[in-house]
């Protein structure tokens, strides 16, 4: 860092003082435009999911669509035009964010919790526990995510459970990858000198795990879970597209599937939800990537 010698702003003046790894990472992140763009899209999608009425005066859940408007072109009042049923595409796209975001968040929470439990146990205790859990991880990795999710979602689709069958399916099939990441960072952290020092000072397993090992496994876990959140949203939309997604909710995947049938007549009912879906998935992947880069000392 050559410019560091000439302190210009308050920020540059701090360079001389040693920073922690997370301080370093934050310093890098703040300068990364990708991080800001991705965060802005994520924030926007979360706002859309929580308060859709802020964005659209038409409530897509109760709107009465008139077939007279079927496939009408976009106009100043109706930016994205109308779909085959004569519903306003803009309102449906806004109200479709909720099921995607909720499925993404809840399945990531489930997958993250299972991964943390299994990854830490396998990494910390090692030996036969590790060998046994490795086989369990293999079994779950052997089921391709989409195929497994179809079967689980279908198995639970008898009752009207809203988004939960899909959440459960994604959570239960998604944990092996983050579990492997957590396991390897726990193993790496537990060979550090400060862990030996803590043990010599008489700290018990629980304290070592919570105070010394898990904080070090946190960054890679957050990265892999952020990227998984994006992947979960993509799979949820794919399931809706295939007709096994959440029922009775407005969803981008269902709208894309519906629009595909009338594609020869009008393409915008397909392009708008597809664009929003891609932007959301991409935002989570870019966010994860940016954080990973910031925390990876090899790239400095």
């Amino acid at each position, binding site marked *: 860092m050559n410019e560091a010698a000439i302190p210009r702003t308050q920020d540059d003046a701090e360079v001389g003082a040693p920073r922690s790894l997370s301080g370093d990472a934050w310093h890098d992140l703040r300068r990364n435009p990708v991080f800001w763009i991705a965060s802005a899209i994520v924030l926007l999608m979360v706002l859309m999911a929580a308060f859709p009425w802020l964005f659209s005066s038409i409530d897509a859940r109760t709107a009465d669509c008139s077939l007279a408007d079927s496939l009408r072109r976009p106009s100043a009042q109706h930016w994205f035009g109308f779909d085959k049923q004569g519903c306003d595409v803009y309102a449906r796209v806004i109200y479709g964010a909720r099921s995607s975001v909720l499925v993404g968040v809840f399945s990531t929470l489930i997958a993250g919790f299972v991964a943390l439990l299994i990854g830490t146990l396998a990494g910390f205790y090692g030996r036969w526990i590790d060998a046994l859990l490795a*086989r*369990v991880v*293999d*079994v*779950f*990795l*052997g*089921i*391709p995510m*989409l*195929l*497994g999710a*179809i*079967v*689980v979602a*279908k*198995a639970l689709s*008898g009752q009207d459970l809203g988004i939960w069958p899909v959440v459960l399916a994604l959570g239960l099939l998604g944990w092996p990858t983050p579990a492997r990441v957590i396991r390897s960072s726990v193993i790496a952290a537990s060979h550090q000198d400060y862990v030996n020092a803590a043990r010599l000072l008489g700290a018990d397993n629980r304290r070592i795990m919570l105070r010394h090992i898990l904080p070090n496994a946190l960054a890679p876990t957050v990265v892999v879970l952020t990227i998984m959140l*994006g992947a979960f949203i*993509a*799979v949820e*939309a*794919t399931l809706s*597209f*295939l*007709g*096994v997604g959440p029922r009775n909710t407005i969803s981008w*995947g269902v709208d*894309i599937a519906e*629009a*595909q049938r009338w*594609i*020869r007549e009008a*393409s915008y009912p*397909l*392009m708008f939800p*597809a664009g929003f*879906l*891609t932007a959301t*998935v*991409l935002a989570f*992947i*870019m966010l994860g*990537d940016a954080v990973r880069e910031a925390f990876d000392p090899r790239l400095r």
Partner: protein
Amino acid sequence: MARFILRRLFHAVLTFVGATLIVYALMFSIASDPLQALAGERPLSESQRAQLTAQYRLDEPFLVQYGYYMKGLLTGDMGRTITGRPIADVLAEAWPRTIRLAVIAMGIVIVFGVIGGVFAGLRRGGAFDQTSLALTLVVIGTPVFVLGTVFQTVFAVELGWFRPSFAPELGLATYVLPAIVLGMLSLATTMRLTRTSVVENLRADYVRTANAKGLTWRRVVSVHVLRNSLIPVLTFLGTEFGALMSGAMVTEGIFNIPGVGGRLFQGIRLEDGPLVVTIVSLLILIYLVVNLIVDLLYAVLDPRIRHE
């Protein structure tokens, strides 16, 4: 090496049994009354019920039923679809189409993914590298069904370069657009992986040595860098072939290709339990066999793996 192979085989069998057991248990739990489903609207008498229960071994414990099912699956007796057609016939007709689609997709991935990745890696930070990094990220973030429907709209419906759905009279040409869609995600990942691998190897000590010996740039790249860079790419491509088979479901569904994936797509829509569970189990089997081969191949190519 023999011990390594044996251990990997053992693990693969365990994984297969575990994974199919989970899928089977879930499908088993869906069907509330399979006999009534079989009979449709007609009422079933007690004696018919008893006879069918014995015929389909529904009175046996769950694990025994699973055993019979697996025995049938591995010996080619896969049961019938809900409309009564033998599943083996359906699959025999569908496989060649899916294999053609997957092979063409794989060809596209290898040609464009590997060559593009090498090119980007050799000129790291250049215009091509920057553009391809951004484009591949967009592709990775786009779900396959979005890519499929958008490509179908743009290139087939609007521009008219391809047919929007399967046209057997066109021969292999009809597979091109679906294969591009199917291979796109693998292409992007392969390109990024190849690029990273080339960039890392360019910094390796043996490249510095080769340069110091006075070898030409061309020789350093083609003999030293490429050979070492392509080992991880090769194994990745192997596992991707299995993934392409299952990704074919969405692509074949969109383009109406009556391959294995297209049948699975229909099976889900028509709630055809036996067909879905059979195809899913077979896809898992293929995925595991391919992974096993790739693992063994990796051990042959990279001696560090087998001496762990």
